[in-house]
């Protein structure tokens, strides 16, 4: 082989090393540790598939059990740090470097291990950034992925939680990397081929099915009157006024309340068919009443949601499904859709500062970003117009020929002024700055930059930042909806009243909403059971959400 094929030679050597443990491509779960020790080389870049929901947990346990004398200093490049094993590998020395996107449940431990120097951090990315870097300079040598089933040849069926898998495999398999899949079952014939066999080198029959977290289930029973009020304001003051049809929602209770108000309050406002028709969204159970009421034309999904499989299968007009009938999700494509094809992102955050920067990082937790910064940003590469986008662009002002003026994506933060434990959502200085200082990061982990945010919705009102003409106005607009937080109480009352006259700050009464009418009875479903009924019995919620 010429000097141009060294990577391929190395790949062949790894396959040969693993072959002795395999029957064809198939390896028993009991041999998973031996397989990894045989094929991995010190310093390898490894993607251990840890998605938002789906986890290659069997391979994660195997990697954590590898002998650090043989496998060490791996560079982990994966979107989710979710399982304890994802960090155990840094304790043992199996891995030493990390580039990731999201670490919800492990956020506190990541922060601790970073400050102890156990993890050398490349960067915290958005999903799309990390995926992009897989193809440029963070290409995995070995990908450890998860699928529902495989056939003898190694064709994979990922099931509804396709998520990151196609992207990870594309980057690894076509650049001389090795792909090892754990599967729940070996079958004669897979229901559909999500990953063709020629991109898969080894298949491990897992000792138990991979774990999927129900991340997007919001129990309507836990929604508060305050969240109903904020949802009413968002619908009337933003969705209706900008006629938003293409959108993405975050996963908080505020946005779930909006979903549940579409068939009730939205219907009353005469908005059916005019807003919220096309979505980039996980299959939120709280969207079921809107779908069943005919509000929703179609939904493309990043991943799936536990218990939604049968419902999705029976609603192929709405969801993207395969020839087998089950959901086909794809995180990379859906993130791209959320970035470029949606006119609105609305989500929640933990902290917003006086410039409108927001962050979910607190001093002791490095939760990462996931996809919110991609969805929650104004894409400068966008070229197609829409009425919503153009109207927002006009409000942002500017001079010159209107035909040369960009539109704006609506990026809305919907937050209650106080969060859990009475922690204020509005702060003078983000904890993310202290976090960055402590760890010596060049860049503070900001979720959504202030210049991307167009509106902030709180229980006190809506601040329209597009209409602000200078930093002072922005600050007072933000203070003007910051309620009884210190930031809110520090407002210039006279200036906030002037902003209110210009429609920059709007109170519920300015929108014709009586806060005392914000009642839970407006929710199309007030319990998980109601959602099951709306679905005609097709939604099968996880046991922990049941009260029947």
């Amino acid at each position, binding site marked *: 082989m010429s000097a141009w094929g060294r990577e391929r030679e190395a790949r062949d050597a790894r396959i040969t090393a693993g072959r002795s443990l395999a029957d064809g491509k198939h390896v028993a779960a009991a041999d998973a540790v031996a397989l990894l020790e045989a094929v991995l080389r010190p310093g390898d870049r490894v993607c251990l598939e840890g998605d938002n929901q789906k986890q290659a947990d069997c391979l994660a346990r195997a990697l954590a059990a590898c002998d650090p004398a043989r496998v060490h200093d791996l560079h982990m490049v994966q979107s989710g740090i979710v399982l304890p094993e994802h960090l155990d590998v840094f304790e043992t020395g199996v891995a030493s470097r990390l580039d990731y996107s999201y670490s919800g449940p492990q956020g506190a431990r990541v922060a601790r291990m970073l400050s102890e120097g156990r993890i050398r951090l490349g960067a915290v990315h958005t999903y799309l950034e990390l995926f992009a870097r897989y193809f440029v300079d963070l290409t995995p040598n070995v990908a450890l992925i998860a699928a529902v089933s495989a056939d003898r040849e190694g064709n994979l069926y990922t099931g509804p939680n396709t998520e990151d898998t196609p992207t990870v495999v594309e980057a690894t398999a076509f650049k001389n990397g090795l792909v090892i899949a754990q599967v729940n079952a070996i079958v004669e014939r897979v229901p559909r081929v999500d990953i063709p066999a020629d991109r898969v080198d080894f298949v491990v029959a897992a000792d138990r099915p991979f774990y999927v977290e129900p991340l997007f289930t919001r129990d309507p029973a836990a929604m508060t009157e305050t969240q109903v009020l904020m949802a009413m304001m968002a619908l009337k003051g933003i969705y209706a006024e900008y006629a938003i049809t293409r959108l993405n929602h975050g996963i908080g209770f505020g946005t779930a309340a909006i979903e549940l108000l579409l*068939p009730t309050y939205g219907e009353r406002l005469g908005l059916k068919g005019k807003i919220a028709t096309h979505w980039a969204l996980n299959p939120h159970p709280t969207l079921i009443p809107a779908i069943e009421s005919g509000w929703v034309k179609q939904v493309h999904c990043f991943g799936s949601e536990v218990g939604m499989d049968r419902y999705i299968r029976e609603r192929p007009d709405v969801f993207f499904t395969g020839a087998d009938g089950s959901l086909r999700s794809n995180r990379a494509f859906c993130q791209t859709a959320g970035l470029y094809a949606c006119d609105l992102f609305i989500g929640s955050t933990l902290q917003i500062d006086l410039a409108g920067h927001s962050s979910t990082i607190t001093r002791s937790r490095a939760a990462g970003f996931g996809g919110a910064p991609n969805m929650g940003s104004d894409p400068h590469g966008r070229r197609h117009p829409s009425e919503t986008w153009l109207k927002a662009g006009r409000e942002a002002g500017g001079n010159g020929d209107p035909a040369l003026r960009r539109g704006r994506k609506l990026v809305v933060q919907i937050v209650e002024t106080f969060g859990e434990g009475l922690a204020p959502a509005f702060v003078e200085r983000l904890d993310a700055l202290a976090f960055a200082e402590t760890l010596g990061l060049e860049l503070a982990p900001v979720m959504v930059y202030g210049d991307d945010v167009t509106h902030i919705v709180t229980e006190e009102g809506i601040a329209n930042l597009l209409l602000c003409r200078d930093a002072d106005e922005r600050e007072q607009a933000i203070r003007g909806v910051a309620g009884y937080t210190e930031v809110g109480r520090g407002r210039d009352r006279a200036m906030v009243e002037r902003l209110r006259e210009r429609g920059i700050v709007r109170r519920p009464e300015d929108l014709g909403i009586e806060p005392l009418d914000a009642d*839970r009875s407006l929710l199309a479903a007030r319990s998980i059971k109601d959602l099951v009924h709306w679905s005609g019995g097709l939604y099968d919620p996880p*046991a*922990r959400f*049941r009260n*029947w």
Partner: protein
Amino acid sequence: MSAPGALSWYEAGARQRIAVLLDQSSFAEILGPAERRMSPHLPLFGLPRAFDDGIVVGRGRLDGRPVLVAAQEGRFMGGAFGEVHGAKLVGLLRLGLTERPAALLILFDTGGVRLQEANAGETAIAEAMRAIADLRAAGVPVIGLVGGRAGAYGGGGLVAGTCSGLAVSEAGRISVSGPEVIETNRGAEEFDARDRALVWRTMGGKHRYLIGGADAFAEDTPESFRKAALGLIDAAAPFDLATLEAEQARLERRLDRFGETLDGRDVWARLGVNDPEGIPAATDDAFRASAEGCRESARDAR
């Protein structure tokens, strides 16, 4: 499904439930919030008090008939029995003996005895059970309605078991030891408290109705509970030796019949329910139809 706009019994508070259950504007509260009969114990623990100590008691009318009524507030400390809370219920029950209303209604919503006032709470449970027996012996039916978040647990389950008749909704739960208590004492293998479907198959409204632990099955609406309460008042059997012996015999038969079953579904299958697997997901109407003819009946003694 609770239609948007309709009041859900499960979601409603104690005062709301009374207001919608009784004849309009007929309720007169005894020891209302303005009297501020609050717990003397909770401040010692740095815990907030409630003006009514989590229970509303008073007089009212149900379909024109005079009734006494008590409603627990399940959101305040899980509706638990403290000293004042318990004394209000016991006092109301004893008032029944002198006033002889058409019925005394208890709207249960309780996790049991308040840990911070456990002695007083336990005493109140015993006194309430004694008072219910006296009241029933005097010919006043005591009707329990169970459909709140907290269910009827601990001592509340015992008091419920003493009533002449019980109406329960699907979301209602009746038991003595709660799921977490069982798991803590016997391990998750014995009872996984996080498996909520299991919790409801074991303690939930449908199961209790099927095995005769409750006498009426209500939808999650005030109208349905009202109808159930009226039916139970009329159906109350005399509190005499024959009733108690019949119930004792029934409970012995139940133990024979279901003693070694491991899951609610097995019990339902032995009862002869069509499609036991489908019971949890069945709508209220479909469930009532399945239960008809095969459920056990408690003959108003329990």
